[in-house]
C-alpha cells in the first residue's frame, strides 16, 4: 500500500476538527454509567450539563470545549506500507496548521520562553508526533488527541524506591487525584505509568489516560491495579468539576514497563471529561474515520 503525503495532510487537518467536535462513543457510555451510579444531587446536575453540552456541540457543529489543546498525533505503520516518513511528518504538521487557520480553531500553542503564539497550533516539536509499527500488513493509522491544559497541568512523577513497593504507587495515585481536585475538569480518566525510565513512565501515563474506556491494561498486574484504583479513586468524593459527588473518574488506567532493580517510578497524567480522540485508518480499500 502506497501512501501519498497529501492524503496524510488532509487527514491530519480533518482529524483535528473531528476530534474537537465529536466525543467518542466509549466516553458517552462512560457518562451513562456515571449518571446511573451518582448519588449526589449537585453532581447529577453537573453531569447533566456536560451531557447537554455534548449534544449542543453535535447539533450546532461546534467545539466541545474552547481549549483546542496541544495537538498530539499517534501514528501506527503496518509492515507493507510504502511512505516517505519525513514527508509524512511534515504533512501532519501542515494539516494541523491548516485545521487551525481554515476552520478556524484557537491556537493554544506558544513558545515556552517568549510566549509568542504563531496562530498555527504548531511550534518547536509541536504537534507532538509519535510513530510506532505494528504487525498488520497494509495499515496506516493516525490517532489525533487535542490534550487540554486543565488536565495536562495536573501531571505528576515520583521516583519512588523499591522498599516502598506497590503501596507507594497506590498512595501516589490517590494523592494526585486529591491534589488535582476540580482543576482537571473531572470526571477524568486517570492515567498511571508504572515502571520504565522517568520519561517512559510519564509517556505511559499519557498512553493510559488517552486509551478508550473499556480497554484494559495488557499486563495482568497492571489490570489488577486499574480495577482497585478506580474503585478507591471514586471513594474520594471529589466529584464532577470538584464540586463533590461519586463521579471523580470514569476509570483509572494503568500502563506498565519493566524498570531498574533500584527504581520504582510512578507517573500520573489525567484526561478530562472532554476526552477527545479521533482516528483515521488507511487501508487498501480506502480511508475511514473513527475514534
Amino acid at each position, binding site marked *: 500500500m502506497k501512501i501519498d503525503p497529501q492524503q496524510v495532510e488532509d487527514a491530519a487537518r480533518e482529524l483535528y476538527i473531528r476530534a474537537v467536535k465529536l466525543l467518542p462513543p466509549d466516553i458517552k457510555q462512560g457518562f451513562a454509567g456515571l449518571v446511573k451510579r451518582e448519588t449526589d444531587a*449537585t453532581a447529577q446536575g*453537573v453531569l447533566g*450539563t*456536560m451531557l*447537554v*453540552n*455534548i449534544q*449542543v*456541540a453535535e447539533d*450546532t457543529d*461546534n*467545539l*466541545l*470545549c*474552547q*481549549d*483546542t489543546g496541544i495537538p498530539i498525533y499517534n501514528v501506527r505503520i503496518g509492515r507493507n506500507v510504502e511512505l516517505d516518513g519525513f514527508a509524512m511528518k511534515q504533512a501532519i504538521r501542515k494539516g494541523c496548521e491548516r485545521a487551525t487557520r481554515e*476552520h*478556524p*480553531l*484557537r*491556537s*493554544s500553542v506558544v513558545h515556552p520562553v517568549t*510566549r509568542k*503564539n504563531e*496562530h498555527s497550533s504548531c511550534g518547536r516539536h509541536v504537534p507532538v508526533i509519535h510513530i510506532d509499527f505494528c504487525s498488520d500488513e497494509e495499515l496506516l493509522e493516525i490517532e489525533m488527541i487535542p490534550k*487540554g*491544559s*486543565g488536565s495536562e*497541568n495536573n501531571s505528576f512523577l515520583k521516583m519512588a524506591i523499591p522498599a516502598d513497593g506497590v*503501596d507507594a504507587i*497506590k*498512595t501516589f495515585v*490517590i*494523592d494526585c487525584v*486529591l491534589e488535582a*481536585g*476540580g*482543576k482537571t*475538569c473531572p470526571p477524568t480518566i486517570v492515567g498511571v505509568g508504572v515502571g520504565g525510565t522517568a520519561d517512559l513512565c510519564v509517556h505511559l501515563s499519557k498512553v493510559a489516560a488517552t486509551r478508550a474506556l473499556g480497554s484494559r491494561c495488557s499486563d495482568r498486574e497492571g489490570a489488577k491495579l486499574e480495577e*482497585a*484504583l478506580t*474503585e*478507591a*479513586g471514586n*471513594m*474520594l*468524593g*471529589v*466529584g*464532577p*468539576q*470538584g*464540586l*463533590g459527588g461519586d463521579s471523580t473518574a470514569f476509570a483509572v488506567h494503568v500502563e506498565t514497563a519493566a524498570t531498574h532493580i533500584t527504581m520504582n517510578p510512578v507517573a500520573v497524567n489525567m484526561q*478530562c*471529561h*472532554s476526552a477527545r480522540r479521533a482516528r483515521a485508518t488507511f487501508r487498501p480499500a480506502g480511508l475511514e474515520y473513527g475514534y
Partner: protein
Amino acid sequence: MAHYDLHMPVFEEQVRALRINDTVTLHGTLYGIRDATQIHMFDRGRKPRFDLKGHAVIHTAPNVRKVDKSAEFPAGYAPVCIGTTTSDRMERFTRPLMKQYGVRFIIGKGGMREGSAQSFADIGGAYLAVIGGTAALETTWIEAIEDVDMDDLKPESLWKFRLKGFCPLLVAMDSHGGSLYTAVKANSQARRAQALASLGVAVK
C-alpha cells in the same frame, strides 16, 4: 438556595446577598480575561479602555472568527466557541481586579484560593462556577462580541461580550467566607484513609 437574575453592572449589596449554592443568571455585559491579559494589566501597567466597575469577568480565551464589522459583529469577530479555563492560575489577580477596577464577580472553573476568598469577603465579591468543558453550551448564551481591547494578546485579549442570559452559574465562593471547594476538599481529605485502606495500604 435561591436564584438571582442580575443585570450588569451590580452594586455591593447585590453581591452580599448571594450565598454558596445559590444560582445566578447574568444579563447585559460580561468581560473575558485571562492569564496574559492580567499579566499585562498588573505586571506591565497596561490600562484597559473598558470600565470594569461592578462587572463580572470570566476566565476565558475564546475561539473566534475574524469577520467584517457590522451591527451583528461590532468588534469584527464572530464567536466560534467560548468557554472557561482553570481559575487557579490567576489567583494573584483577584484582589487587584477588585480593588483597582471594581470587579464584583469572577467566573471560571475549579475554584480559587484563600486569598480570593478573603478579597470577596473584604471588598464584596463572589466566584461563580461554570461547568468546565461545556463551551458549546456557553457559546449559545452569548449574543455578540461587542468590543475587544488589548487584542495583540489574542486569544487572551480583553473581550466584551453581550449576553443572552448567562446561566446557570453556581455561587461557589461567596462574600461571607463560604466556599464549596474548601468543603469538598476537607471532605475528600477525610476520605483518603478509607480509599487507601480499600487498597490494602496502611496509612502512616
